[in-house]
C-alpha cells in the first residue's frame, strides 16, 4: 500500500474503520454513507480490499461473533493503518488546498480589468532571447 497509491475503495474502508472495529456489512454501509453514496462496494470487491489491507498490515481481525448462526468478523485498523490513512488524508487535503488556491487565483485574474492604461498595450510575455515575442 505504501509503494502503490491507495484506491478509493481502500481509502473509504480504512476511513470506515477509523473510529471503531466493524464487520463486513458495517463496512459496506459506512463506506456508502461516508462517500455520500458514491462508493457502493460489492461483497466480492470488499473482500478483495480486506485481503489486500490485511496482507499490507493495515487492518487486523479484531474479534469474531456468531449472530443467528452466522459468522461475523470485526476488523480494526493497525498503527500502520492509521498512519497510512493519515498520510492519504494529508495528501488529499494538500491536493484540495492547491485546487482551491488555483481556483481563487483564477477568479481574481478574471475579475481584474482586461486593459489598464499603458499596461494593456504591453506584450503578454517578456521578450525572448532574440528580443522577439514569438
Amino acid at each position: 500500500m505504501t509503494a502503490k497509491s491507495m484506491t478509493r475503495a481502500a481509502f473509504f474502508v480504512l476511513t470506515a474503520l477509523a473510529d471503531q472495529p466493524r464487520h463486513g456489512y458495517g463496512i459496506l454501509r459506512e463506506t456508502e454513507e461516508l462517500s455520500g453514496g458514491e462508493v457502493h462496494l460489492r461483497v466480492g470487491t470488499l473482500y478483495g480490499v480486506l485481503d489486500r489491507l490485511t496482507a499490507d498490515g493495515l487492518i487486523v481481525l479484531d474479534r469474531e461473533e456468531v449472530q443467528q448462526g452466522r459468522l461475523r468478523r470485526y476488523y480494526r485498523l493497525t498503527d500502520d493503518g492509521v498512519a497510512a490513512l493519515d498520510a492519504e488524508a494529508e495528501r488529499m487535503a494538500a491536493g484540495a488546498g492547491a485546487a482551491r488556491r488555483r481556483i481563487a487565483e483564477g477568479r481574481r485574474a478574471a475579475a481584474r480589468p482586461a486593459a489598464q492604461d499603458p499596461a494593456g498595450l504591453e506584450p503578454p510575455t517578456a521578450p525572448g532571447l532574440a528580443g522577439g515575442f514569438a
Partner: protein
Amino acid sequence: MTTLLETRYRTVLRLLPAYYRREREEEMVETYLEDLDRDTQDQSRPTLGEVVSIAALAVRSRLGAAGAPRPYVVLGSVTRLFALAAVLLLAASAVVAPVLRLTWSFTRGGAQRRLFLSEFTDHGVLAGTVAVAQWVLPLGWAVAYFALLRDRPRLARLGVLAAALPSLWPLLRSVTDATPLPEPAFVTMLALLAWLPALALCTAHHRDAPPARLPAGTPGLVFMATCVVTGASLVLLPAVSDLVWGPVNCFVVGALGLLLWSVRRTDRGVPGGALALAVLGLLLLAVRVAALYPWLRVPGAAAYIAGGLAQAGALALLTAVLAVAGRRELAAR
C-alpha cells in the same frame, strides 16, 4: 432455515477456490444477506454486479492474490511470466515485420511502392481502415511490454487488448460475409496466440501482483535483442518465413538461454520461469503445426516444410525439457 437466495449466493461463491471458501464463505454470506428482508429472499437472486465481483475475486485469488497458498502463488507467477514472454515475442514481431515490409516496398521502385499503398487505398474505406488498423494496432504489444515493465499495468492491459483485436478480423469477416474461413485451424490458433497472452496479462497482473521484472537485462536491451533475432531470421531465410517463424526462433534462443542460465545460477529467482516458457512453447508448437499442415502436400514447398518441421521438432523438444525443468524447480523449492 436456508433461503433460496442464500442457496443461490452460495452457488455463486463456488466460483472461489476451496481455500478461500473455507476461510471466507460464512462471513461473505452473512455480509451479503444481513440487509436483505428474509421474507423476500426466495424471490430474488444475486445481481449481475455481485456475480461479476465474485468472479473477479475468484480469478484474483487463483492467480496469487494476497494470502494465497503456494500452488496459487506459483500459478500466478507462471501466468505472469507466460504473458511477459509472449508479449515480448509478439512486440518484436509487431515492430520488425512492418519495418522490413516498409523498407522492401520503398526501396524497390515505384511499382512496389504503388502495390504497397494500394492495400490501403484501392479496396474501399472499410478495407482501408481495417488495413491501417492491422498495421497500427499490433504496435500495442510493444506499448504493453514497456508499460508492464514500467509498472503501468493499466496501459499494458489496454495495449494488449488493442493489439489482439486484429486477430479477430478474419473470424469476424467469415461470420459477417458468410464466406468460409480459409485455413480455420491456423486462423484460430493465431487468434489464440494473441488472446491467451492478452487475457493472461489482464488477469494475472492484478493489483496485488508483484511488479513484472525480466530475469536479466534491461527492457530496452532485451527488446532490441529480440528484434534482432526476429529480423535476422526473416531476412536470412525469407523462403521459409511465415507469421510464426520469427517468434519461434526467438523462443528457441530464449528458452535455450534460460535453460543454460538456470543450470549455472545458484540463486532462486521468480518461481515458474521454465513452466511459463513450456506453456508458451506448447502454444507456439500448436500454431506452427496449424501453419504447416496445409502445405504438407503442396508441391514446391519443400524448403518451407523443412524449415517448419525443424522448428516444430525444436519446439517439441524444448517444451518437454522446460516442462521437466519446471517440475524439478517447483519440487526443489
